[in-house]
């Protein structure tokens, strides 16, 4: 009896947490676009990444959830925050119309409901146990050429940074 109650409570907390994270990610994504100061929108972006990472981890995608936290927050968001805090960007509103009203108008037209019925040949995903091994296997065998091409793109980013800035 107690086990059933415990399981029910766990499931309830799990679902509640998922819903909270989902809502938080939606709100923080809107905030990231709508807030005026860049450092504030970077903060909301970090909240977005964290909540998405929690959602992913809870659904069983452990590797990608942790990678989200590691790469997005740990590298990219930190870099952006530091650069933005050093730059002197004017963020006070200039005109009478609030910029958030533009944003809400754009949201009315955007197709946010991406869940259509899938009436085609899509397989179901079964339980994923060894995500890291599978991804590693695929990256080096089936997706090998994409891996190499993405590496060329990344090398270009380094070369590009050098060539565009150096005088």
């Amino acid at each position, binding site marked *: 009896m107690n086990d059933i109650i415990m399981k029910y409570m766990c499931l309830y907390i799990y679902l509640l947490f998922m819903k909270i994270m989902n809502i938080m990610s939606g709100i923080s994504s809107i905030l990231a676009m709508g807030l005026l100061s860049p450092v504030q929108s970077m903060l909301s972006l970090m909240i977005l990444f964290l909540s998405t990472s929690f959602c992913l981890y809870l659904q069983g995608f452990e590797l990608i959830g942790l990678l989200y936290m590691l790469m997005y927050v740990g590298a990219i968001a930190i870099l952006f925050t530091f650069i933005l805090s050093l730059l002197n960007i004017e963020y006070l509103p200039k005109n009478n119309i609030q910029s958030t009203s533009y944003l809400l108008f754009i949201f009315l037209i955007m197709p946010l409901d991406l869940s259509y019925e*899938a009436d085609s040949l899509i397989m179901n995903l079964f339980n994923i146990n060894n995500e890291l091994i599978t991804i590693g296997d695929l990256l080096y065998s*089936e997706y090998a050429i994409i891996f190499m091409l993405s590496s060329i793109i990344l090398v270009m980013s380094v070369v590009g940074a050098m060539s565009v800035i150096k005088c």
Partner: protein
Amino acid sequence: MLFTSILIFLVLSTYICHNDNSFNRLGTITVAFITLMFISSLNIVSISNGITLFNNWFIFKTINLPIIFMMLLFIMSWLTYSSTNSISINFNLLVLVLTNLLGLMTLPLVNDLLMLYIIIELQSYTLYLMTGLYNKSYNSTRASMLYFMTGGMASTIMLMSMYFLFNEYGTMNLNEMNMLQNYNNTFNMTEMMLMMGLMFKMGMAPLHRWSMSVYNYAPTYMTAYMSIVAKLSMSSLMFANYWLFDNYVMLLFMYMSLLMGAYKPLYQMNLKTMLAYSGMLNFGYLLLSVMSYDMSYYMYMMQYVLTHLLMFMMLLSAGELVTPVSKWSPLLFMNQLNMNNNYLLMSLMMCMFSLMGMPPTPGFFSKLFIMESSLMDNYMFEMMLLMMCSVMATYYYANMMKMSMNSMTNKEQTVYMNSTVAYMMSVTTMLLLTFYIYLPNMIEGLMMMYM
């Protein structure tokens, strides 16, 4: 081959410091070598059914071969100018050009949506970087930033369309989608979004405002490259996967490009903007041949690459003759066409005649074949519109010729041009003038390519 050459150049550029541009000649030789390997490894009959490369990510059919070959030749000729003294030195040009070439050459070959996205990003990023390569010029940095913004937006649209396409077909593989499309009766909004992203990147009307600014702000040397090279590879992708795209939406882009490209430059004084609009107009003609899936596509591409190369080489080499507007785009305005060298002006006039569609020049023959093929597919109004817009475009080409006629009264001066550039220009002019001689032989060979 390209992979190794990229790596070699990357490593070399860090170790060797060059104070002049002689390094770029190596690049020309490399591209020539790649072209040779490409030609020698072809066996048209054996690849006519298509070879899939690298686990179904690429498909190597004969449809794309002429375009790839033309791209290689164009880049080879364009790189010959980079070793002259009038271009400021930048060591990273070659690495970026070679990487861009990798992206351009593999874009028509893609067989998968994921690969399409990655190759488009590879090609686009290097193109953005090349636009801002000459960073001493403020305008070129502006151009690069603007190009990056709009190109990123277009890539986002394409990514979203890939989500919808996967939802509909269950596979990312273009070949399988082709087969599945015969059994499906779905609304083609998804492919329309993909095509809109591609058209945005190409700079077709009505999404062309960014391209006018970018081509204007970038240095003339970079405009010569990027205004044609991206369009070539993307239109080749659309030609190879013609079953994926809806004819009616392509018609929209064709109408708008023709009308904008014929009307807008009539009030322009800026040579680069006029040439950018004329490029849009010409690619509007090309969309008609893509829609009727005909060999006239190859012919139009051949003569357009020749014409474009010659025009921009003339613009670049005339920079030493006139009082330059700026260091990066010396010949910018139409009233500067009053120069002392009549032979340069004659080659420009040959290009103008070709773009107008005058009979002995190649432009006439390609337009003739486009009109013939579109008549066979019942695109009557589109053909009439092509004719009318071509006549309207004659106005501004003729205006350029009239401006250059002011130089007939100048005294002839001997100007010493760089001999490599002079050689390339003379070869290109000769190819342009004698196009009708080798055209029938080309047609016989091209017939096999798209069947």
